[in-house]
């Protein structure tokens, strides 16, 4: 065993998985997990914990895995995280915990994500659940949205003894975990549904089909239904489009629509009633994790798939692991390329996409080199489907119906990073509704901070 290297994790073969929706990564078994855990040197001043937005006691749980006591490891993780099986799968560990691992200086960092996943899966398979509050506080808190921010905030508050109800707009709880992230990265029944069950077992109630701002307002929740505090974790919102000609042609979709059809509505399954375009040649515009998810979904639905991104590979915002997996599966990357127009036939169906080649110029305000068009480099890509994955802008449903809740110039809800406090008394917020599109774990971190903020607020009342 080479102590400088991670114990490799088993994955489904790239060729095989490109045609199915089963999970790509197969995870560690007990033996592999113990071997990997043994690489951890249990630093006194553990940098990995500082890299974790929910501050899991990482060396603590790894120590228990090393000893073979997985149940104890699960309890250590549960103190800080309500969704370990999710985080072990979708967190960008390379830029967080693993990015700070001392082992990573000379060799490869400890595979913290894979170990977390192992522990969470092990506990779930044995029906081990986190422990709930012993004493009730007798105060009601409403949580809006059942995505990572909401579930974390609700779970933490329930553990403190609050009576928590989550309001979810869709018919199923989970937010981006069910509508956004595909089955092959995050299994819905086996992983997401079970973690939500765990949160419910802490006493959290979930009411689906309630659109806050429409079905009921925040003020009504507080005044008529007796909620002493509210946490808003309503997520990102409206998909952005490029504003180029032809974008409303038949066959142009937002990544949100494409993924929601496939993930939430199960269109990937042939027996589902939900239709989805199974294109022959698909262009996915954008370079983030959502773009990778949409591309890999289209690939599995039988298409030749191109990622079209205006900067170079180095600037791709997606996780390295996702890009690597996408390439392995046969996704073609058309980098330094920008669409300028979508072409369609006389019935309005997409037939192609005009693109222009780009080169990198001077750095822009984001610090990344600005892509500049190369004159005369226009060409047409023949495609029948275009998926726009350009991020989202905030949903106005809540901010426009809540008196006293202020938003910033990007229309994101203003909330204090430390405790989630908004400009309205008793109302807290976190996750994409505050930051704009970010990651699952950052949303969880915000949910956690807000749970603490709400507890302080209600304890002082």
């Amino acid at each position, binding site marked *: 065993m080479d102590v400088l290297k991670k114990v490799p994790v088993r994955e489904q073969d790239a060729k095989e998985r490109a045609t199915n929706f089963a999970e790509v990564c197969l995870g560690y078994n007990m033996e592999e997990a113990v071997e990997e855990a043994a690489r951890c040197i249990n630093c006194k001043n553990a940098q990995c914990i500082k890299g974790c937005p929910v501050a899991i006691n990482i060396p603590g749980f790894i120590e228990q895995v090393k000893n073979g006591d997985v149940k104890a490891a699960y309890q250590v993780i549960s103190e800080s995280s309500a969704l370990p099986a999710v985080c072990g799968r979708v967190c960008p560990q390379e830029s967080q915990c693993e990015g700070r691992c001392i082992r990573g200086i000379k060799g490869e960092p400890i595979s913290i994500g894979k170990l977390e996943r192992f522990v969470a899966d092990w506990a779930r398979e044995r029906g081990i659940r986190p422990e709930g509050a012993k004493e009730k506080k007798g105060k009601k808190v409403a949580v809006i949205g059942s995505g990572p921010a909401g579930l974390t905030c609700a779970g933490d508050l329930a553990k403190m003894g609050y009576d928590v109800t989550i309001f979810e*707009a*869709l*018919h199923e709880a989970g937010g981006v975990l069910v*509508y956004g992230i595909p089955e092959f990265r995050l299994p819905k029944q086996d992983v997401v549904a079970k973690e939500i069950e765990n949160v419910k077992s802490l006493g959290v109630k979930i009411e*689906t*089909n*309630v*659109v806050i701002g*429409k*079905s*009921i307002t925040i003020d009504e929740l507080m005044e008529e239904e007796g909620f002493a505090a509210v946490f808003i974790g309503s*997520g990102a*919102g*409206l*998909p952005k*489009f490029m*504003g180029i000609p032809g*974008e*409303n042609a*038949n*066959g142009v*979709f*937002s990544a*949100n*629509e494409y993924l*929601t*059809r496939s993930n939430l*509505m*199960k269109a990937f399954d042939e027996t*589902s*009633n*939900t*239709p*989805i*375009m199974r294109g022959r040649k698909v262009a996915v515009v954008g370079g983030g994790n959502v773009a990778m998810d949409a591309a890999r979904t289209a690939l599995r639905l039988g298409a030749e798939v191109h990622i079209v991104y205006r900067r170079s590979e180095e600037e791709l915002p997606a996780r390295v692991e996702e890009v690597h997996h996408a390439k392995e599966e046969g996704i073609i990357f058309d980098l330094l390329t920008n669409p300028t127009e979508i072409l369609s036939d006389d*019935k*309005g169906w997409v037939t192609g996409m005009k693109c222009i080649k780009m080169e990198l110029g001077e750095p822009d305000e984001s610090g990344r080199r600005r892509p500049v068009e190369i004159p005369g480099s226009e060409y047409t890509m023949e495609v029948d489907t275009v998926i726009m994955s350009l991020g989202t802008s905030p*949903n*106005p*449903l809540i901010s426009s119906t809540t008196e006293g809740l202020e938003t910033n110039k990007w229309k994101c809800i203003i909330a204090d990073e430390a405790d989630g406090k908004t400009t309205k008394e008793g109302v807290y917020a976190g996750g994409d509704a505050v930051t704009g599109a970010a990651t699952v774990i950052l949303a969880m971190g915000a949910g956690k901070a807000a749970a603490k903020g709400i507890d302080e607020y209600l304890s002082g009342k």
Partner: protein
Amino acid sequence: MYKILKKQTLAANIYLMDVEAKRVAKSCMPGQFVIVRMDEEGERIPLTICDYDRAAGTVTIVFQTVGAGTKMMAELNEGDSFHDFVGPLGCASELVKEDKESLKKKRILFVAGGVGAAPVYPQVKWLHENGVDADVIVGSKTKALLILEKEMEAVAGNLYVTTDDGSYGRSGMVTQTIKDLVEEGKQYDVCIAIGPMIMMKFVCLLTKELGIPTVVSLNPIMVDGTGMCGACRVTVDGKVRFACVDGPEFDGHAVNFDEAMRRQQIYKTQEGRAMLALEEGDTHHGGCGNCR
């Protein structure tokens, strides 16, 4: 679960249901819509709110069977339940937000085509309850498909019924009745037209000519209905708008109807296949491979 308290067949393939949905009944306003799901595997189907009873906590929906989803829904009976019933979605009608005194001075014309009578009804009823009498044109293909005539009569100022084939009321399309009324000397400050996209397009072409500002209510393809998916985008005045959060009502003279009609066709082939599968089971898979 959302229980069906009443089911009524209004015409061939057009059904009315009273559904128990307390939160929606409490907060909905004319112009808004709901999304329903029959069962755990069901599609999310956007439906018009036709009426509501705040005290009883019920919402009345009206739908026509057009695809496999609505066809299965039509088989539900009183006592059965919808698995999901979410709303109210979209913005309330502009009319209900207006100052009531100025509203009373307005000469308002509603134009309903086919099942469009259902979303028109709560608006006319709301106006009636607030002391405003509006003229209403209800058009249908033929007498047998005419719905909500009596209900509409009770709340409308003047009701004009027209059938395309002349089997009942006036004869011809709704646009003909609009022309006739204007020629008879009627004047309108605003027109609200709700019905099939093609009807709304032609009503708008006419009212533009006549100089009557016109509001339409669009029903494009939708998934979540809360602004997340962007499937329902329409071009209004050259700008992309989302019908679910910015609408469903828009300035009819600014809507790009041709694009909106094209976009409604996106899943037609797949919906057609689903319908065949529902009607014929597996028999239509002839193995030719052409429909894959």
